[in-house]
Structure formats: structure tokens, C-alpha cells
């Protein structure tokens, strides 16, 4: 039973060795010389005024959240589409199930559309 896991273990071992080798060598060989100027933020060679953490308008955050919701929706579709071909006898219920999922998210989409969250300025 153990035999079938040898290739997986080999790959994992190779990956771990590779990572350790690369990180170790570069850490061990690199000549890090941190100085105050080097750690200062780079702004095209100019002295920096103020810091980058300015107060931003909230609409950027809103758009980010909406993107995540609909992106996760498509992520869920991927395994569904993969499984769809392998079990031909269940095609009917699988389609119905995905329809429900999409409709629920469609309601959410129409809601934010009417609320005007997609209006930019």
C-alpha cells in the first residue's frame, strides 16, 4: 500500500529540499547591508513627504468586496463543471443545483445594482 505513495513523497521531498537550498544559500551567501537610506521608501529618487497610508474613499473597499463575492462564485463553479462530465447519470439534478446557486447570487447582484453600489462617482 505504501508503494503508491512513493512518488508523492519524492515530489514533496524534492520541493522541500529545493526551497531550503535556495533560501538557505541566498541567505547564507547574500551580503545584506541595511542602511537608513536603503530602508526608506523609494519615490523616484525624491525625498518622501507624508506616508502612503492616506485615508481613501470607501468606494474602493466596496468594489473590492463585490469582486470577491462574484469571484468566489466562479471558483465554486469550477469543481462543479469538472464533476459534471464524470457522472453523466446525474446531469439533471446537477444542473438544477447550480441553477439555484446562480439565482441566489443573481438576487444579490440585482440588489446591489439597484442600491447603486456600482455607481462610481
Amino acid at each position, binding site marked *: 500500500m505504501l508503494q503508491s505513495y512513493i512518488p508523492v513523497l519524492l515530489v514533496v521531498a524534492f520541493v522541500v529540499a529545493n526551497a531550503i537550498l535556495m533560501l538557505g544559500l541566498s541567505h547564507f551567501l547574500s551580503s545584506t547591508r541595511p542602511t537608513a537610506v536603503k530602508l526608506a521608501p523609494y519615490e523616484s529618487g*525624491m*525625498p518622501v*513627504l*507624508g*506616508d502612503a497610508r492616506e485615508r481613501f474613499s470607501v468606494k474602493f473597499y466596496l468594489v473590492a468586496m463585490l469582486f470577491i463575492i462574484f469571484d468566489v462564485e466562479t471558483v465554486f463553479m469550477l469543481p462543479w463543471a469538472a464533476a459534471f462530465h464524470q457522472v453523466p447519470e446525474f446531469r439533471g439534478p446537477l444542473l438544477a443545483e447550480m441553477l439555484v446557486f446562480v439565482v441566489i447570487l443573481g438576487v444579490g447582484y440585482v440588489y446591489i445594482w439597484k442600491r447603486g453600489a456600482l455607481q462610481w462617482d
Partner: protein
Amino acid sequence: MTASAGSGTVAAAPSPSVAALTARFGPAIRRHEVSVGDTIVYVAPDRAHEVLAWLRDDPGQRFDYLTDVTAVEYRDRERPLEVVWQLRALGRGADLRVKVELDPGRPLEVDSVYDLWRGADWLEREVYDMFGVRFRGHPDLRRILMWETYREGHPLRKDFPLRGHFSRAEQTRQALAANPEAHYSIQELSIAAAYDELPGDMKERLSRGERGDVA
């Protein structure tokens, strides 16, 4: 060994604008001459802005294109420093050079033509940076080519040596040590600021009003 064919002031006819100008302004137009085909009009410094506004707006003249604003300083001391406006009428295709002689006694000042031509904004800032001629009424007169706290004076003046007053080491030190507000105008400092994010040392320099003498 003068170039044989050329002779300085060719006796070409001055442009018709000269007659119109002398008719309109009389004593303000000091004199005019023609050099190699270009007409030059010398105007009294305090009425220069008025003459230029008339030249731009008068339907007969319509000098609507300001080609260049510059200044000339001669090698012999008694000739005064001149500010030169190079005008062009796009419709009529005529050129005119208006000059103003600033007497060396009083501080070098002349009226800005920024309200007549927007293009004069940077040209006048460069003349201020290079010659030290202040333009009254210019919205934002500060150095444009050298950094703002440049202390060696105005480079294109004849008394300014080619390599600068200070030694190369001093010039390097001043350049490397130019503190941050030398690279930012007051306008940008007030934006970045909300005033508390500025680094501490710059804030107290600014509050002492010591922004480096802009002269």
C-alpha cells in the same frame, strides 16, 4: 574680419505697427530700429504692459501669438539689461520684437504678461531664474531651472562666472545637502502636509520661516 556680405542694420522699411504704435502711445515708444529685417520697438518700462495689451487686442494689430520672452545683458556695463518679447500675428503673418530697457539703478522689475498670454508663465519664471528680473503680477514666480534654494545668484548675468562662484566641492555639498523643501514648492508642502505628516525637522524649519533664501 567682418563677414563681407552682412551689414548690421539693413535699411529695410520698419513694419507698419511702428507707425500705429507711435500714433497711439507717442512718448511711451522710445525708439525703433530694423536689424536684419526684424523690426524692434523700444518701449518705456512702466507702460510696457499697456502697449503689449493693445498690440494683442487691437483689431488692426492682432499679435495673438507670443513666440518668446527673454532678456539680454550686454558685455559693456552702461548698456542696460533688456527684456524682450517676440510677438507674432498668426493671421497676418507679421513679426514684432518689443524691448524694454531696465535701468540698472532700480531693482529689475517689469509687469508680467501672464494675464495676456498663458504661455508666458514658464518663460518669465526662467527669465527670473536666469537674470533675476522680477515680474509683477506673476502668480507663482520661483526658480524653474535651478533648485529653489540655489544661493549662487542668477547664472546668465555677465558677472556670474562660467563655473559658478563656489568651488566644485562646495557646489556638490550644497546640492547633496538640499533639504527636502528645496525640491517641493510651498504649494505642494501644503498639500502633503495636513501639515502633521511632514518630517519633524522640516516642520520647525518651515515654522521658523527659514525656507532657504529664495533670492
